[in-house]
């Protein structure tokens, strides 16, 4: 640590960056990846660098790691310049890039040793550390396993402990929590908190707003600008007393949501499973709300804090909700039924005797860590994968017999943006319309309707690649529902998008469910669980818990966690060994 500045390990002042190959004429003028950013990192603190995808988190970390050269402004780490003093600094800074930045064809131990030698750490010093870190990360028994054969969580733990070798005073961690199951995420945080207690400072970037709670200070970024810098609690404080939930009957939910959104005193409203959640504006009071339901006070969350912070200026152009004339309650009619659905890959049982029944109009979730069997189950339910035993039916059609006919009734939206980037929005829509066999006149009508509803109109002739993340996701959705499917499969639909886009998305999903479309969501993001009507938690190919999100949370309550979050509930069920 530099003795001249014991308090500030990192000083960033008026920092701006723009990528040379980025088109400067994007619609919102967001050519700057970072704009006039000023912040500091103090010794021994964990700072959360929080914001949705495209906020500028990675750019900032790369600038700090000396991988990019600032366009304007200055930055200083440990009193040194990241570019001029690169080789001195890189010994004292542990940088963990995004994605699994490991050599997949090297073993756990080989990866660690390579990292140590790259930073020219003396061997006698690192050997002891290596053993301790592997132990702490629970990887000690995997020393000789290839990194490519580890689970996502284990990979991230390995990448993290590799940066800890040599005990650098500063750690720059780029989204360590992405693609990681809740158990591993908790372990990652334990490792980071331990590093802090040993005097290290940590910059942890994340797109999950709820991770703010675990940081000493948070820096909230959105579209390249700093919106908040300070303690996480101070972020929630102004929201206390302004958040309420109410429980309307199912048939009235979506209509009520629209009504509430029209009330001037309401800052934000969203459906959370069976409940409606309301955030009031600063000057509004609950008694002003003309609602015939009882309001229950609720604890604010960081998404609401984000929305409150941005005010109305950043509100995404929300799509107008689908017409509600056909609003209906989820019926008892079963549209998906699986019986003893099992799939083996060699001796590995990916999905083990799955019995599910999903009702029309339900928003149904399959939750689980990576490798829990969600994707396998999901593929068998779409008729993309043949079960080893058992059967799956969609709308009464046996998938083993007539998967093609069944597939005509389902829409699918992949996790990654899987449309043609170099086709325009309109060309993408037309292509998918023809794939699903829509007649040209029908397709034209449907495309116009969806383009208007999803706010894609001004973008129709732009390449899909040029779309901002939130719009890309709406385009994926439009392509998935062109043929008006009775079932919609969503794979981690809102990972990384900002809370505005996420709300708009789920509002649309709720409207579709109200019209009788059945929605199946697979995700390992626990925060998406709050939007579901009903869910199953999977582990090792088996269902270990199922029910309404609130019931599952309530059932997982313990003395230490009287009001568990979905993530805590998930960990609870997994640790119970699959016995809910």
């Amino acid at each position, binding site marked *: 640590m530099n003795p001249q500045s014991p308090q500030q390990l990192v000083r960033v002042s008026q920092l701006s960056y723009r990528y*040379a190959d980025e088109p400067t004429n994007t619609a919102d003028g967001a050519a700057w990846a970072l704009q006039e950013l000023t912040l500091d990192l103090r010794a021994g603190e964990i700072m959360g660098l929080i914001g949705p995808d495209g906020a500028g988190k990675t750019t900032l970390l790369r600038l700090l790691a000396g991988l990019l050269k600032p366009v304007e402004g200055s930055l200083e780490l440990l009193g040194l310049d990241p570019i001029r003093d690169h080789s001195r600094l*890189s010994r004292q800074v542990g940088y963990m890039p995004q994605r699994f930045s490991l050599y997949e064809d090297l073993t756990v131990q080989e990866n660690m040793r390579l990292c140590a030698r*790259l930073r*020219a750490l003396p061997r006698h010093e690192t050997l002891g550390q290596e053993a301790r870190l592997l132990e702490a990360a629970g990887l000690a028994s995997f020393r000789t396993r290839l990194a490519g054969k580890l689970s996502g969580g284990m990979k991230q733990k390995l990448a993290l402990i590799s940066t800890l070798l040599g005990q650098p005073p500063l750690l720059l961690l780029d989204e360590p929590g992405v693609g990681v199951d809740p158990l591993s995420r908790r372990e990652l945080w334990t490792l980071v908190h331990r590093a802090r207690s040993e005097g290290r400072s940590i910059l942890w970037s994340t797109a999950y707003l709820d991770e703010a709670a675990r940081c000493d200070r948070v820096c909230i970024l959105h579209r390249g600008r700093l919106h908040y810098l300070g303690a996480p609690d101070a972020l929630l404080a102004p929201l206390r007393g302004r958040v309420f939930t109410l429980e309307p009957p199912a048939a009235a939910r979506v209509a009520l949501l629209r009504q509430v959104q029209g009330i001037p005193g309401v800052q934000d409203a969203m459906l959370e499973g069976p409940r409606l959640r309301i955030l009031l504006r600063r000057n509004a009071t609950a008694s002003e709300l003309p609602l015939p339901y009882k309001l229950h006070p609720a604890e604010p969350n960081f998404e609401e804090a984000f929305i409150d912070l941005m005010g109305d200026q950043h509100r995404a152009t929300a799509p107008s909700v689908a017409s509600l004339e056909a609003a209906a309650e989820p019926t008892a009619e079963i549209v998906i039924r699986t019986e003893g659905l099992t799939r083996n890959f060699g001796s590995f049982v990916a999905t083990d005797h799955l019995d599910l029944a999903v009702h029309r109009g339900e928003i149904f979730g399959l939750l689980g860590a990576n490798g829990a069997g969600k994707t396998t189950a999901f593929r068998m339910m779409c008729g993309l994968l043949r079960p080893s035993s058992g059967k799956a039916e969609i709308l009464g059609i046996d998938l083993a017999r007539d998967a093609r006919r069944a597939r005509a009734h389902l829409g699918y939206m992949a996790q990654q943006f899987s449309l043609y980037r170099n086709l325009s929005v309109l060309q993408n829509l037309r292509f998918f319309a023809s794939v699903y066999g829509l007649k040209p006149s029908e397709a034209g009508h449907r495309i116009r309707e969806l383009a208007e509803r999803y706010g894609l109109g001004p973008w129709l002739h732009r390449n899909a690649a040029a779309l901002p993340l939130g719009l890309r996701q709406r385009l994926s959705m439009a392509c998935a529902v062109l043929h008006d499917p009775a079932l919609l499969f969503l794979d981690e639909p809102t990972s990384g998008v900002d809370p505005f886009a996420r709300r708009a998305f789920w509002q649309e999903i709720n409207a579709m469910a109200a019209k009788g479309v059945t929605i199946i969501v697979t995700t390992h993001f626990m925060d998406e669980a709050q939007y579901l009507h009903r869910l199953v938690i999977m582990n090792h190919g088996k269902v270990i818990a199922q029910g309404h999100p609130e019931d599952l949370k309530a059932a997982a309550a313990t003395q230490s966690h009287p009001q568990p979050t979905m993530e805590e509930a998930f960990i609870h069920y997994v640790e119970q060994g699959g016995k809910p």
Partner: protein
Amino acid sequence: MRLLALILKEFRQVRRDSSSILLAFVLPILMLALFGLCVNYDTSVTKLALVTEDEAPTAHRFLEQLQGSPYFRVNRVADESTAIEQLRRGTIHAALIIPSDFSRTVEARGETRLLLVTDGSTPNTAQFTSLYLQSICATWLQKQISTSTAAGTAAIEVVPLYRFNSAAISRRYILPGSIAVVISFVGTFLTAMVVAREWERGTMELLLASPMTRFEFILSKLIPYFLLGLGAMGVCTLAATLIFGVPLRAPVWLLFGITAIFLLSVLALGLLISTLLRNQYSASLVSLNVSVLPTIMLSGFIFELSSTPGWVQAISYLIPARYFAPSLSTLFLAGAEWAALLLNVLLLIISAIFWLGLVYLSTPKRLDP
């Protein structure tokens, strides 16, 4: 220390990924076998239809000479139109017509006049047939003159002696050139993937953030594949000498020394492609087009460079195999002939410096340019 760690890492990756091993040790044998067995300039027996309009003894003696040649299988047909018909159907390679004044011209003026009809759609065979026939005529005519004129104008018999390749087997000439192609290909491909792979898997960012220098990075990518490249050369040399019977007349150290210099160029070329494209798929396509094809076309071992336009020749100077292919021919067939080697070796050294310099300049220090 850091360099050693990086090299060790590279070797471990090579060991766990069989494609590098296949590329260095199996592919050379396959490629050499293809070149060695398929590219062949030696003619086999030519099927010749013969029409004779001259029945004089002189013409008969010529016919005997022709039928005695191991290169022709002569088949007499009645007339010219039959011969042409056979040529059209492809049952013969060429038709030879001996005109009625053949004997008279030979006796009177010591000249032969023949009509040879060849198949223009197979120009190589046509060319060879014509050349062989001319040489047979010349030899035969020489004999005629020496026997008919008592005192005789001094009979000159030309005995061709093919130095360095005494049997004039084209394979012996083609194989050293093929080795240049194989080593170009293997060398470029070995390194064309490695930097792109680091970019694709995101590990490049990890390396750039470390104190590693550009120099260390390039060396760590060169040294392991340099050794593999030498291994590939070993495989090629063994295959050429033991399987295809090509002699190796230069000392082994010299062969490998010159190969080493050449390898620096092609490995650097691969690294350059990989560094610029950052994508394994594009890198492999570009490598194929930048290494193998120009080497075959422009190194001068299959196609004579002197017959190409000036600008093509100018491009060929950029291709290191242009200096390596003739060096290999010299090394294998002639031996350590410094007069023939020196210039090429110098140019190979310049080429290595040129390509390595480009790699150094194009290797980024950061993520942005």
